[in-house]
């Protein structure tokens, strides 16, 4: 509940504040957001599996975003930033889909 409220608060804050993404963050924010989404879906799935743990969620959330941003940064340094970004997005997308499928099975039995 607090998480949902937090999400809502964040969205409202973003809409109201109209933040300007700093230049150094621009390549990493999209990947970080996708990674965070992956963590959130994983957390939701864990809730439904009955194995949710606050600490695990926080750590996985932070680790996911940091690692995703790091990979993109590394890719940028190696000159394969866009390809590596695509790869990260694909991997995270697959994870999000599998988590979403698990959640769906839990909630809809299908």
């Amino acid at each position, binding site marked *: 509940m607090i998480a949902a409220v937090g999400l809502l608060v964040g969205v409202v804050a*973003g809409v109201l504040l109209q933040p300007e993404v700093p230049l150094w963050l621009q390549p990493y924010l999209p990947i970080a957001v996708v990674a965070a989404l992956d963590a959130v879906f994983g957390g939701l799935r864990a809730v439904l599996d*009955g194995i949710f743990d606050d600490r695990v969620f926080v750590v996985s959330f932070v680790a996911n975003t940091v690692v995703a941003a790091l990979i993109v940064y590394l890719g940028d340094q190696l000159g394969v930033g866009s390809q590596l970004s695509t790869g990260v997005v694909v991997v995270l997308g697959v994870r999000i889909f599998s988590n979403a499928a698990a959640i769906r099975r839990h909630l809809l039995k299908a």
Partner: protein
Amino acid sequence: MSGDGRPAPAPGAWRALGRAAVPRATRGQLLAGLLCAVLGFGVVAQVRQTQVAGLEDLREADLVRILDDTTGRADRLAEEVRALEQTRRELTEGGDSARAAERAAQERATAYGLLAGTLPASGPGIVATVTDPAGAVTGTTLLSAVQELRDAGAEAVQVGSTRVVASTAFADAPGGAGAGVLVGGALEQPPYVVRAVGAPDTLATALDIPGGVRETLRQLGAELDVSTGDEVVISALHAVSEPQYARPAR
């Protein structure tokens, strides 16, 4: 959440969700909420960023296409600039040449006016005074003096109060010797004052050549007095009549 250790059977998935939805102010919950707030904030920020994003987020192919478009447009605009500049140059030069032609026409009109005797003239030249106590000077003598001056480069000549032009006739006045000379139909009487604009020294020398005007006049008993000046004014004008028959030939 799952911290109570109770298994959540599949049918109770909604119940698990409902239990999870119950707010509990544990540190983990608050932290998760904070992270979710950060996520929401980041999502919105990124969405906004993407909406206002410029070229840096485009793919290479798109960039190449945009570059091609821009280059093509720049080329077209440069072509247009060249054409317009050409037109502008033509117009400007056209104006210049029109002005130049006007100026040249003005200068020609002035020169012709001086030659035709329709404009007053002034400049360096001579004033030759012919005193004729014997009354022996004829129109021929004056004509030869004028011809000598013309040969010496006189650009404007006036005898007495008559402007001498190409068509000016010199004739003896009726009434015999000493009656005067008809210059262009106007009666001139001694002393004859001949004004000429030209190189003063050349004109004066031309009258002094052996067997020339001065000698002829001396033989006739007349005297020629020549004075040079830097500003000889020829104020008499020749009235030009419209040609009756002649028309410009094409």
